[in-house]
């Protein structure tokens, strides 16, 4: 197999790599951290590190390289968190910014959620996506589809019931 000699140090190639992988790495980091801000912080560091080492990394191996640094940085972050946690324990600082009932979003749950949305009956999916992705209010959707607000609400309600059934207790 011929070796791919594309140079990561070229800013065009670097940007293409970002566009191709950044979202997936962000997702990967979110599943680990359960915190989107942290995931994005680490994502930034991953790409900065890739740029620093751009001449040393083979283009063929860049994907696994990025995932390994992402994982290592996550583990470092965990280590740091433990230290910070112990520090806080000794300082009797009890207040946290997290909500009291922390909800864990596992990879399996998120994947099931997304596949279920994709497989919703057409009418429900249409309304659901307009609401979730396009951030439209039920009223606006009703106008666009030329149906009543109640009909929109019914479809949304149905979609949620289907999801409950499909996803079950994860």
């Amino acid at each position, binding site marked *: 197999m011929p070796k791919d000699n594309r140079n990561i140090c070229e800013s065009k190639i670097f940007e293409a790599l970002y566009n191709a992988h950044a979202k997936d790495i962000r997702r990967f980091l979110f599943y680990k951290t359960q915190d989107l801000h942290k995931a994005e912080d680490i994502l930034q560091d991953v790409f900065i590190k890739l740029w620093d080492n751009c001449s040393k990394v083979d283009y063929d191996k860049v994907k696994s390289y990025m995932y390994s640094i992402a994982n290592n940085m996550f583990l470092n972050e965990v280590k740091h968190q433990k230290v910070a946690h112990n520090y806080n324990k000794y300082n009797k600082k009890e207040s946290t910014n997290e909500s009291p009932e922390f909800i864990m979003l596992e990879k399996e749950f998120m994947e099931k959620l997304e596949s279920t949305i994709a497989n919703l009956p057409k009418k429900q999916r249409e309304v659901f996506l307009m609401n979730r*992705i396009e951030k439209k209010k039920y009223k606006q959707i009703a106008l666009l589809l030329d149906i009543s607000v109640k009909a929109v609400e019914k479809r949304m309600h149905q979609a949620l019931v289907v999801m*409950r059934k499909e996803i079950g207790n994860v």
Partner: protein
Amino acid sequence: MENQNSHNNEEIFLAQWLEGKLPDTELKNRISEADYSFYLKLRKGLEVSDQLNASNEDLFNKIQEKIAHKKTTVRKLQPMSWYIGVAASIVLLFGLFSILTTDVIIYETDFGETKTISLLDGSEVILNSKTILTYNESDWEESRQLSLDGEAYFKVEKGSTFTLNTKNGSVIVLGTQFNVNSTNDFFDVVCFEGKVRVKTNSSAHILLPTQSIRKIKGDSSNPSTTQLLQPTWIDGESTFKSVPIKYVIIALEQQYNIKIDSESIDDTTIFSGSFPHNNLHIALITVFDPLHMKYNEKEKRNIKLEY
């Protein structure tokens, strides 16, 4: 109104809750515990899903900003690493040079110090104070060659030609005992045993036991004789026979780590005698009293000579 609401709600309350029109607490009352926690999780999952699928171009701009900022700091360091690289190469080159070319062994004595050295062939050398002896270990087998600056007594084992080089000339022997003093332009060789060949730029001599030769500034004196079996400095005493006082002063300075100011005396005055190595006071009396010179310790280790 409220009645109508609750009546119709059966088919739409989840949609209303998701839009925020129905509070969490009311949803909790309407459905089972398991359903409630599922929907809470679903709501959060939907939010996160939106965020995860959203564009992250902003982030790329941030990354580029950070990289651009970093670049300048990286550049600042580069000249430094360049210097270190050059310095390391020089050190490495010199190291290689010394390994590849010579295995030079250096022996050195300080003020008032003597040192006994065994050479590779069993020959023995005793160094007087302020003396440097060097030889090359790697080609010692083929040619026994040494360099000397100062005074040393040699007991050479029989074997190949043994050559001692000094600034003032060289001494060549086969196996013998001899003393060499080569300090500045003073050159003195005494043979105690065997036969010694002395070569200088201007002359060549062969010394037999008890004979000695001396050259001062290249002017050689005729061979003279000594009654001693070995040089006296080995036993802690320096002996001189008809030597200009200048060289005795150098010997004193080297033995006691002092400075002697001889500006106001005639340093070509001839001296015969000896001085001990263990007592500066006695040494000064024995050397300078017979010559009617006064010595004066102006400061510590700084002596001025006067008539």
